[in-house]
């Protein structure tokens, strides 16, 4: 989609507090038009609050942002004409059917009734919801609800779409479906701001990623740059007996650097550049007589990215006040 402004989002020093908690504490973002931009962080990092400010749902306490050159506060109505939001809570009406939801949005976006009906039918078909179209949304599965939610966001093609954790809680199949939809949307020219807790997801979809923690952007770059900053991959080992973990830690430390104990009491991981080193490390464990339940060589997890960037794990701590605040706001 051609636009005279090269940046879809330009945010400078966004701040938002709830009571004493600074949910967002000086976020800068620059999102190129036509790209997928990932905002990666644990629960309570300030992702949702940032999205809500950019989508004109919350007024920033300080800082400013433009969406395609329109100020999100002074020119909020113009921004609303360009964006659509798929929130963390499904942003569809549970008391209506899938079809009614889409027809309603079509009408509200300026389609005539016949056009709205036709568009609803087309989207239901494309999103595999045709059979469920006259069922109430409250009876939909999580994956169906998400797809309807995304369909609702594109009844009229937005220039910028906010997706807040679109695959959280979905099974792998539904997840892949959502990813396919996102890829197709981008190919058609929509810019997407994607909030996610999964590095994996950001890696697959995003052209650029900002890692956010405690309301601040702590790292920014392409997925490749980000992964390079934490090493190319990691060996994950799960032991049969958690009692063996400290011994396993010593053995692994001999073969690999920076062994990290996972939250799971039987699991450990360590950055590992290639399969040879992984094989050596696993062999060393076997020689030491430590029984392994399973092991894998994979991308660094969000936990590891956080550990590398901040020195603390990306814990999902319900006692974290910022997590609570964000949950209340959402």
């Amino acid at each position, binding site marked *: 989609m051609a636009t005279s402004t090269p940046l879809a989002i330009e945010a400078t020093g966004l701040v938002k507090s709830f009571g004493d908690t600074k949910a967002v504490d000086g976020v800068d973002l620059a999102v190129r038009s036509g790209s997928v931009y990932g905002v990666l962080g644990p629960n309570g990092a300030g992702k949702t609050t940032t999205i809500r400010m950019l989508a004109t749902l919350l007024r920033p306490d300080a800082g400013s942002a433009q969406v395609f050159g329109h100020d999100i506060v002074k020119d909020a109505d113009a921004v609303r004409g360009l964006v659509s939001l798929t*929130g963390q809570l499904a942003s569809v009406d549970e008391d*209506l059917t899938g079809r009614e939801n889409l027809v309603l949005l079509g009408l509200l976006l300026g389609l005539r009734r016949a056009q709205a009906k036709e568009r609803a039918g087309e989207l239901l078909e494309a999103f595999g919801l045709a059979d469920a179209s006259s069922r109430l949304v409250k009876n939909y599965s999580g994956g169906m609800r998400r797809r309807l939610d995304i369909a609702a966001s594109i009844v009229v*093609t937005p220039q910028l779409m906010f997706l807040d954790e679109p695959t959280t809680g979905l099974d792998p199949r539904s997840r892949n479906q959502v990813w396919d939809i996102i890829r*197709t949307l981008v190919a058609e020219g929509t810019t997407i701001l994607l909030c996610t807790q999964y590095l994996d997801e950001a890696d697959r979809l995003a052209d650029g990623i900002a890692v956010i923690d405690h309301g601040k952007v702590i790292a920014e770059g392409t997925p490749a740059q980000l992964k390079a900053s934490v090493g190319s991959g990691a060996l994950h080992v799960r032991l049969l007996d958690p009692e063996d973990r400290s011994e396993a830690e010593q053995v692994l430390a001999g073969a690999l650097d920076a062994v990290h104990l996972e939250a799971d009491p039987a699991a450990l991981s360590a950055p590992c550049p290639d399969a040879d080193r992984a094989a050596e490390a696993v062999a060393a464990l076997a020689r030491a007589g430590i029984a392994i339940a399973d092991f894998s060589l994979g991308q660094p997890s969000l936990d590891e990215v956080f550990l590398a960037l901040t020195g603390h794990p990306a814990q999902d701590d319900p006692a974290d006040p910022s997590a609570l605040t964000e949950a209340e706001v959402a």
Partner: protein
Amino acid sequence: MSVNPTTTPRSATTAAADIALRKALASTPRPPRASAFAASLAFAWRGMLKVKHVPEQLLDVTITPVMFVLMFTYLFGGAIAGSTGEYLEYILPGILVMSVLFTTVYSGIALNTDLTKGVVDRIRTLPIWKPAPLVGSLLGDSVRYVLAGTVIIVLGVALGYRPDAGIGGVVAALGLVVIFAFGLSWVFTTLGLLLRSPNAVMNAGFMGIFPLTFLSNVFVDPETLPSGLKAFVDVNPISILASASRGLMEGNPDATDIVVVLAVAAVLTAVFAPITTWLYRRG
């Protein structure tokens, strides 16, 4: 904890679905914005769809007034007016007022319930006339008001009520009551946005509307009341609305009453509609 590196092989069966998806996702030109009227109407339609899917929700707004008609007519009618038939003549327009006004509290409760759901976020980010979601739901609710009123009138006729002004008078009275209810419902939508739970809205709403209804001429002729109370009852807008409805149904409408009722409805709307809209947008 292992990150599963599954790739998504696209099988032949998904190819057709892929084409449908691409077609649906192909960017479409943005239509001109929905007019204020079209957007409000769409929200009114949404309200009616909810009634269509859960018709039971109309029970709470119809059963109470029906009970009141039966209870007051047969229990107190003889004692208050000498005979049940005569009392029915007096009370029916009043019960019509009461039942419709009670229904307005539910508009506030419904709005409060709506706020807890994710769909409000989407509505707030739509490029539409700001009051449209509220005006639309209240227009949809007006249909419920008409329904609640009709139930009472039909019940009254079944019990022997015969309005002197005939159908025209009854329709005029119902229309007036619904217009007043539309104005009053803005008070409850404001409450609905200020209070934390649907229950709180219900309690606060009925705590206000209940005494106001009883301290009016809906149930008794104020002539017998102590002077202080009578003074209040005489200026209570609900009394004036009940008198105006009686006048319309009996064929001797009082122009002053009707004008006062319309003025009160206009003032309530002028004050509370902007407050509601502001609170709704503020989030």
